[in-house]
């Protein structure tokens, strides 16, 4: 009796976790699970009630109305990922390598590089939309001033060929500070002895970077890649601000986030009603893509650490 009492005291640790647990499960863990369940249901009301098995997925993958949009959104999200990896993370690596040195004023540069990451994606998007404005925007004015007359009035966000690239570049502009800081921590973790030894052996700065620092940084590069991946498949705001939730022009900037929003919540042309069942199946597809990406990263990391 006394022991049972001790096992569940009035101030048992469990009680301390209850408030957090209730809110977290009620508004996050349970809805995540329940949204997946809802991908097997259909209905005209706001809560789909009719069990339809895999029909939402069949619709999503075979009905041209959904399939074409899904494939388009997948492609565009991959373009976004490619731009972020190629430009944002490469620049981050470069900046981190510089900032890890003993440059004077590096804390000022660090503050500036990170600044856009504190800004709202919405504000960034609107701001760049103004700057990219074909007639009054600064980008075209500068290009014309430098003699590139062919860009006079060029609608960067109005052409399907360039719109997605612009969205990707602005995303890279905004977030470059995060990989910079993560890589910087990585560079600072490399022991001085290793670098010194390489330098005594006559390796140039470039050789040290490619042959010593980069291989040691592989796990960090993996981490940054997977973070970028998750971020891109979760993106929405930047497209909403710079073009619109329909991924204008001609769905060329439609990404997974906007597709999910349109079909699951806002309702898309020609049906102005949201299709929550299909929306939930899109969320589930995104979940599995993220799951696949993260698992692959964990597998590679595991294998990498075993080799070492």
């Amino acid at each position, binding site marked *: 009796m006394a022991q049972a009492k001790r096992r569940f005291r009035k101030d048992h640790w469990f009680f*301390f976790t209850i408030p957090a647990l209730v809110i977290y499960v009620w508004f996050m863990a349970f809805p995540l699970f329940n949204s997946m369940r809802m991908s097997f249901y259909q209905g005209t009301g706001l809560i789909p009630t009719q069990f339809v098995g895999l029909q939402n997925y069949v619709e999503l993958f075979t009905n041209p109305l959904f399939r074409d949009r899904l494939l388009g959104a997948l492609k565009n999200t991959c373009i976004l990922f490619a731009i972020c990896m190629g430009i944002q993370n490469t620049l981050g690596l470069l900046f981190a390598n510089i900032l890890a040195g003993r440059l004077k004023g590096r804390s000022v540069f660090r503050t500036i590089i990170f600044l856009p990451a504190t800004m709202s994606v*919405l504000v960034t998007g609107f701001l760049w939309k103004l700057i990219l404005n074909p007639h009054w925007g600064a980008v075209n004015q500068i290009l014309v001033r430098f003699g590139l007359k062919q860009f006079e009035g060029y609608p960067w966000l109005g052409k399907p060929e360039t719109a997605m690239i612009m969205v990707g570049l602005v995303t890279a502009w905004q977030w470059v500070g995060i990989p910079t800081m993560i890589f910087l921590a990585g560079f600072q973790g490399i022991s001085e002895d290793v670098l010194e030894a390489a330098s005594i052996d006559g390796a140039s700065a470039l050789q040290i970077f490619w042959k010593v620092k980069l291989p040691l940084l592989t796990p960090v590069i993996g981490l940054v890649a997977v973070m970028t991946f998750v971020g891109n498949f979760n993106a929405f705001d930047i497209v909403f601000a710079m073009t619109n939730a329909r991924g204008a022009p001609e769905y060329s900037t439609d990404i997974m986030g906007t597709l999910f929003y349109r079909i699951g919540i806002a309702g898309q042309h020609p049906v102005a009603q949201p299709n929550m069942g299909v929306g939930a199946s899109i969320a589930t597809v995104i979940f599995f893509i993220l799951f696949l990406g993260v698992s692959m990263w964990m597998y590679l990391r595991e294998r990498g650490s075993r080799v070492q």
Partner: protein
Amino acid sequence: MRHRRTNLIHYLILLAWSLIVLFPVWTMLVNSLKKQLDIFRDPFVFPPSPNLAGYRYVLQDSDFLLYCWNTLFVVGLTIFVTLFIGSLASYALAFWKGKASKFLYLLFLSGIMIPIRLGTINIFQIVRSLGLMGSLYGLIPVYIAWGLPMAVFVLTTFIQELPRELIEVAEIDGASRMRIYSNIIVPLIRPALGTVAIINLINIWNDIWFPLIFNLKESHRTLMLGVTYFFGTYQTDWTKVLVVLTLATLPIILLYILMSKQFIKGLTAGAIKG
């Protein structure tokens, strides 16, 4: 000699990028102080006589301040509750040894890796069934749930690293767990609480997804939702648009300049998911 040249190249790279970062922010600031025609005539210089008409209009004749207040209300309440219940749970999870504790900890951590947006369909239904659709109050529990995984992760890690002796001495003195929490733990974890507060401040201040989904009624709009509407209505009036964008960003930028170290630390920690 070679060293000096590399340094020069490094400076040039950093300066070029700083220019690319600061240029849009600079044009936003200076042009919000100009009349429309002056923006188009000379977009890059600071105006000789700043024109505050845009600011006067946005602050006096629009609901901008109301939206600001709405966001501050949501941010304040959310951060307060998140820190309170998050630190309580972390205190328990850091000291409680057992399978149940481990399970709960992992349950919270799984929320760091899965974006909450994927649960939107059901969150929408839950908030609707609570009758909170269109209301600011619907945002608060969702934002708390969103911030909790990160809060529990940061705070539990921090509490586990505290010197045990301090707590053991208090236990021997017969202090209750709640007393130890309020008198010892909370003062000691202040830096970590700051980190969590910054992550949440940025996430909530800048969020547009949930205000959009919850279709907030006009008097309940948050700042960023307001910015969206202003941008649509003022579209051709660049002064006003830029004033709105400046006012929506400046508080955070100023705070960031004041405490850039904490911001960088907090946001980088917040971004590393997994």
